C-alpha cells in the first residue's frame, strides 16, 4: 500500500490550456441538439412545475451578489471550462455538466475561496469531484474516477473521493438540484405563442453561453429558465416588457421580475460578446484567466493543508 496516497499528487504541472484542441464543435452541435431533446422531454404539467418551484424556493434564497472577488471568478470560470470540456470528451449530457456547475457554485457559496486563490490544482480537484458527483446523479454509465484525469494534474482516486465527501458534506447531501431545463418547455409554451423546438434549443445555448460568468446560485433555476426563453425569442425587451410578459403567466408570477430582467440582460450581453468574438474570427485565448491560475501553480503540499483547513473554518453565514 502506498503511503503517499493520502496526498494529492502534484507530479505533473504542465499547464497547457489550448482550447483549440477541443474544436470539434460542429459535429458536436448536432449531438448536443439530440441530447437536449432528451433533456427537455420532461413533464411540464402545472402540478410538476409547482412542485419544482416549491422545492427550489426552499433550497436557496439567493439574490444577485457581486461580493465574490475576481480571483474567485477566474478560478470559477476555469473550473467551468474544464467541466464543459470533460463533459464533451465523455459525451455526458448537458444537464450533467450544468448540475456539476451548480455543485461548484454551491460549494463556493458555503466556503470562502480566498485560500483557493492561485491554487489551480485545488480548483481542478474540486471540478473533478463536482463533475463525478453530477455524473453519479445523472448518468447511467459512470466512469471510474481514474478516468477523470486532467491535462495538468494527476489526482489519485482517494484524493478525489475525499473531495467528493467534502462537497457532499458542504452541500449537506442535498444533491438533487432543480435546473432551468425542467422549466423550459413549460415556460416556452406559456410565454411564447408559438413555442418551437428552435426556441428551446436557443434558450439552452444561451444558458450555456453564459454559464462561465453567471453564478448559478445568484439566480433561481426558474428565473434563468424564464430569462432564457425570453432572450431566445426577443433580444430587445425592456424591464417593463419583461414584467408585462411575466404577469400573464400564472406559474411565473412567483418569480422576481427584476431578477428575470437582470438575468435576461446578462444572457443577451454574453451572446453579444460571443457574437463579437466569432465575427472577428478565432476566439482569442482568455489570457486573464489562464495567467491568473498559472502563476501560483507550483503549490507545495503545505498549500493543500492550509487551503483545506482555512476554508473549513470560515464557513460563510447564509
Amino acid at each position, binding site marked *: *500500500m502506498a*503511503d503517499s496516497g*493520502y*496526498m494529492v499528487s502534484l507530479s505533473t504541472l504542465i499547464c497547457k490550456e489550448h482550447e483549440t484542441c477541443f474544436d470539434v464543435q460542429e459535429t458536436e452541435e448536432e449531438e448536443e441538439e439530440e441530447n437536449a431533446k432528451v433533456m427537455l*422531454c*420532461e*413533464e411540464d404539467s402545472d402540478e*410538476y412545475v*409547482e*412542485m419544482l418551484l*416549491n*422545492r427550489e*424556493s*426552499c*433550497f436557496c434564497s439567493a439574490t444577485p451578489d457581486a461580493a465574490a472577488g475576481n480571483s474567485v471568478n477566474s478560478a470559477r470560470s476555469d473550473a467551468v471550462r474544464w467541466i464543459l470540456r470533460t463533459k464533451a470528451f465523455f459525451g455526458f449530457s448537458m444537464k450533467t455538466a450544468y448540475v456539476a456547475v451548480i455543485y461548484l457554485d454551491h460549494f463556493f457559496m458555503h*466556503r470562502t475561496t480566498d485560500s483557493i486563490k492561485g491554487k489551480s490544482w485545488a480548483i481542478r480537484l474540486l471540478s473533478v469531484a463536482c463533475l*463525478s*458527483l453530477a455524473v*453519479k*446523479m445523472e448518468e*447511467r454509465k*459512470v466512469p*471510474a*474516477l*481514474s478516468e477523470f484525469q486532467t491535462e495538468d494534474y494527476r489526482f489519485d*482516486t*482517494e*484524493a*478525489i*473521493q*475525499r473531495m*467528493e*465527501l*467534502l462537497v*457532499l*458534506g*458542504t452541500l*449537506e*447531501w*442535498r*444533491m*438533487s438540484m432543480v435546473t432551468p431545463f*425542467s422549466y423550459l418547455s413549460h415556460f416556452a409554451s406559456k410565454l411564447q405563442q408559438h413555442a418551437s423546438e428552435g426556441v428551446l434549443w436557443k434558450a439552452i445555448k444561451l444558458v450555456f453561453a453564459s454559464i462561465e460568468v453567471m453564478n448559478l446560485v445568484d439566480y433561481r433555476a426558474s428565473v434563468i429558465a424564464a430569462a432564457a426563453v425570453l432572450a431566445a425569442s426577443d433580444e430587445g425587451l425592456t424591464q417593463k416588457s419583461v414584467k408585462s410578459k411575466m404577469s400573464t403567466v400564472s406559474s411565473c408570477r412567483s418569480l422576481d421580475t427584476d431578477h428575470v430582467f437582470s438575468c435576461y440582460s446578462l444572457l443577451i450581453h454574453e451572446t453579444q460578446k460571443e457574437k463579437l468574438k466569432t465575427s472577428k474570427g478565432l476566439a482569442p485565448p482568455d489570457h486573464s484567466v489562464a495567467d491568473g491560475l498559472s502563476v501560483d501553480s507550483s503549490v507545495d503540499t503545505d498549500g*493543500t*493543508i492550509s487551503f*483545506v*483547513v482555512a*476554508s*473549513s*473554518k470560515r*464557513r460563510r453565514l447564509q
Partner: protein
Amino acid sequence: MGDGRSGGGGGVNRPAWLQQYDLVGKIGEGTYGLVFLARTSLRKCCIAIKKFKQSKEGDGVSPTAIREIMLLRETCHENVVKLVNVHINHVDMSLYLAFDYAEYDLYEIIRHHREKLSHSINQYTVKSLLWQLLNGLNYLHSNWIIHRDLKPSNILVMGDGEEHGVVKIADFGLARIYQAPLKPLYENGVVVTIWYRAPELLLGAKHYTSAVDMWAVGCIFAELLTLKPLFQGVEAKATPNSFQLDQLDKIFKVLGHPTPERWPTLVNLPYWQNDQQHIQGHKYDNHGLHNFVTVPQKSPAYDLLSKMLEYDSRKRITATQALEHEYFRMDPLPGRNALVPSQPGEKIVNYPARPVDTTADFEGTVAVQPSQPVSSGNAASGNIAAASVAPSRSMPRSMHVVGMQRMPNTGMSTFNVAPQAGIGAPSSGNIPIPRGAAVQAHQQQLRRKDPSMGMQNPGYPQQKRRF
C-alpha cells in the same frame, strides 16, 4: 474541538462520532452493507446504523449511497424512516447512516403469525399497517419519489415508545426522484424483488411510474391477509435483466390472462411484443383473486386489493385514491398504533424482538465465539432490553473498531481535517439533520391541497360512519 479525528494519543482509539454510540450488535446484512443496533451514550435511544459497503476501489463515493442519503434528506414524514445523522469514517472513508430504530418489520410480523401463531393478523392491524404504508407512499409520490423496492422487510414498525406501532417505509437504495413520469429508469442490476415486481416491469417496460409501488403494496396487502407471498415466482438469474417467465406465470394464473382489452399498452411491452417465450399463446383461466385470498369477494378489502393489482398501470389505483377507499372508512378504523387495537378485548400479539448478533463489531467482523442470537419469543415491550440483557457477553458495550485503524494515521490527519470540519456543524464530524426547510414548506403546500397529507400525523379517518 471534538472533531472526529482518530488517533492522537491514549484512550479509546476511535473517532468521536463513534463514541456517542454504544454498539449492541449486528441486526442485518444485505447487498448494501451491514446494519447495527446501537444506543446513544447520552439519551440511551436506540439507533440503527447502516454501514455502506465500501464502493469498489477507485469509484469514489457510491452512487447508491449518494442517492439514498439525498432522498432521505429531502423527506420528512411520520411514515418514512428518519435519518438522524450521516457519519463519515475518515480513515477508510466509509459511510454510516444513523436512523431511528424500528423494532419490527412486516416480514417478521407475517412470519411470526405464519410459523408461531398460525392465525391471521387481526383486521385492525392489517388495516392500520396498510393505511400508514399508503400515507408514507402518498407523501413520497407527491414529492415525485418512487421507492421501487417495496417488500415486507422494507416496511418497518416501531417498537415500544412514543411511536409504538407506527409504520416506517425504509431502504431507499433503489428509490429515485422521477424528474418526469416517463423518464427511462432502466438500470444495471436489480430493481424490485421479483415477487413484488409490477407486471409492466416484468414485461420489459422501460418507462414506468409510481404505479409500480402500488402493485407492490397490493402484493403486501394480500400477504398480510393470507400470511404468504401472493406471487412466489422462481427468479431467473441468467442475466441481470432476465425475463422472469415464472413470475409472470404466477401472476397470470391468479389474475387471469392479460388481454389488450384489459390492458391496452400491453402490446407495446417488449417481452410481450417479441413473444420469444410464447407467453401470448398460453391461455390462462380466469381463476380470480378470490380463490387465493381469504376475503369475501364483495368486501371493500377485496375491492381495494383488486384495484391495486390492476394490470394496466394507468388504471391501477394511486396512493391518494386508495386512502379514500371505503375500506378505510369502515370498522375497524385504522389507528396510529397498528400493533395495539383500540377496541378493548382484542388480543395483543407480542412480536419477537429482532435477533441481534452481539458478537459483531462495527466492521461486521464476528468474534471467535459462535453467534448467539438474543431473540426471545415474547419480548413485546422492552425489546431492547432483550438485546442488551444479552447473555453474559462483555463485547457489546465496547465497540471494536479494529478494522478502522487499518491505515496509519500519519499524513492522514492533515487531509482529514477538511472533510471532517466541513460536514455539518462546525464542532463535530456529523451532519446534524435539520429537518429540511424544503420539506416543511412543501408540507404547507400539501396541507393546502389536502388536509390529510404531509402532516406529522396522518389524518386518521373519523369515526363518523359508526352506526
